């Protein structure tokens, strides 16, 4: 009896310490993560900042109606979908190709050097990468246009013309992300059963045939998994990148949801409207994420928890 009491007493003491340990993180998350979630209510208000979150007039879905009545909104959604879809496709093909080629390299030092070099831009911020891109792509004196001039080609204003701008977005996205995804694919190649290759070469299949009939099919699960999971990010077309490269000249082809929210909210100070666009984006993303995890589970037997 007394033993048992002592036991429960001790347990209560130790969970007390656990609660205390969690306290600072809980407080910060409560304020800076849950606080803003409560703040979403302003997307249903004709929000006036000085009245606080609950003091402004409730206007139902008027902010949403207003946003979808604006001529730009559909274009922005279209840009977002197109840009992130292009990035998604290129973001599968290039790392996959690089991983397969790297896998053929037997010299470990060479392989590691290539990986380290290709991996470098992943860790640099879009501020730095944009600074570099703006300089080398400049139509007056940038090295790329100098080279084009050397070939007798008229200078191209890469960051000022819509189609070129999108091309630069996709290309520089690959430049930054390539190394990371390549590592994932390389790991997948390594997990393919080696005896398959032996059996194939006994049957007279050359390296190309092995690549086509063993390596690629062996990677199918991870390809399916990564592409399905990237569906959840379809509305994230890359705020940091677009925001630091774009200019009003290319808004019509480069403005994406996140930059749109930023301009409506932080520049035009229409807090309620901006929050409504943000909420719309979160809601659609949430549906996409759920779908993608469901698909990932069905197709690749993938579970998060």
């Amino acid at each position, binding site marked *: 009896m007394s033993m048992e009491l002592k036991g429960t007493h001790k347990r209560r003491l130790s969970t007390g310490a656990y609660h205390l*340990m969690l306290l600072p993180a809980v407080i*910060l998350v409560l304020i800076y993560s*849950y606080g803003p979630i409560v703040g979403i209510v302003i997307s249903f208000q004709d929000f006036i900042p000085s009245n606080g979150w609950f003091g402004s007039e409730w206007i139902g879905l008027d902010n949403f109606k207003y946003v979808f009545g604006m001529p730009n909104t559909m274009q922005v959604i279209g840009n977002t979908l197109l840009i992130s879809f292009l990035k998604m496709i290129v973001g599968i093909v290039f790392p996959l190709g690089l991983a397969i080629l790297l896998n053929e390299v037997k010299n470990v030092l060479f392989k590691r*050097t290539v990986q380290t*070099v290709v991996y*470098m831009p992943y860790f640099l911020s879009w501020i730095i990468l944009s600074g570099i891109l703006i*300089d080398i792509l400049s139509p007056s004196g940038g090295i790329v246009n100098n080279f084009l001039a050397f070939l007798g080609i008229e200078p191209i204003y890469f960051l000022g013309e819509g189609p070129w701008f999108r091309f630069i977005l996709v290309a520089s996205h690959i*430049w930054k992300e390539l190394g990371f995804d390549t590592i994932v694919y390389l*790991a997948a190649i390594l997990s393919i059963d080696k005896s398959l290759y032996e059996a194939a070469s006994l049957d007279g299949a050359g390296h190309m045939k092995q690549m086509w009939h063993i390596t690629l099919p062996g990677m199918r699960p991870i390809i399916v998994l990564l592409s399905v999971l990237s569906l959840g990010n379809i509305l994230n077309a890359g705020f940091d990148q677009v925001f630091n490269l774009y200019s009003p000249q290319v808004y019509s082809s480069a403005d994406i949801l996140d930059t749109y929210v930023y301009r409506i909210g932080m520049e035009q100070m229409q807090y309620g409207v901006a929050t409504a666009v943000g909420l719309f984006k979160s809601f659609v993303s949430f549906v996409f994420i759920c779908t993608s995890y469901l698909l990932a589970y069905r197709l690749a037997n993938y*579970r998060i928890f």
Partner: protein
Amino acid sequence: MIERRTFSRKLFIYANYIFLALFSLTCLFPIAHMAAMSLSSNAAVTAGWVTVWPIGFNLDSYKYIFSNNVFMNTVGVSFQRLFLGVSISLTLTVLAAYPLSKSQLKFRSRTAYSWFFVVTMIFNGGLIPTFMVVKETGLMDSIWALVLPSAVNVFNVVLMLNFFRTQPHELDESAQMDGAGAWRTLWSIYLPISMPSLATIALFTIIFHWNSWFDGMIYMNSPSNYPLQTYLRTVIVSRDLTNMNANDLSLIANISNRTVMAAQLFVSMLPVLCIYPFLQKYFVKGIVLGSVKG
């Protein structure tokens, strides 16, 4: 037949080496070009002679930026946020991850807390409400605005929690036998063995803080409080160095907006370039564990 195949195979191998070498050089080129420009004379840069090797080698752009108070001040702000951000983040991560790594039996509220954290990985209030909360809590224009809102990274908590969980139960039990409480057990038993995981999280947090720019832009009213990357954005976007007052005229012959910008970009890359090769190893492990799980 066999000879031909080995020949084509050899051809492929060499072509592959050459292609990969050229490809990585292409990826490296823009960065090397920047570095070369920062070390070249203004005349050579303007004439477009500089590729990946400095022409008219000089260190004047670096002399200029290191004597530039605005630039050095932003470097100071960045290091300050780095120090505060990393130490606070790590402390909170460990403190939150340890109780959550306990089993349901030992810590009954575990599930409730876990949901409390995981929900924030899926839902967030978005730009404007977050901005308003930071404003209402009085953090505008202070270094804490760059540290506190991002202090708890749930993803890192999950990583740490999973690490703690892989440790044998006996650690906990024997510590308790010896009369150590939860704090003592965490401090003298769990913390020492989790140093490698903690180091990895620290390196990622360092890179996160070093690279952050958006929070500096929206939460800082006065540019003197900007961290380095936020300041760089104003330089890059405006493409104009309004603060380029030439108190040292001898420098002007060798520097220009472009060489100075290149030098600033290169200096801000350096810490990351020094750290990232060490991360690769851990990173690979982490991704492999995460993605090839099924």
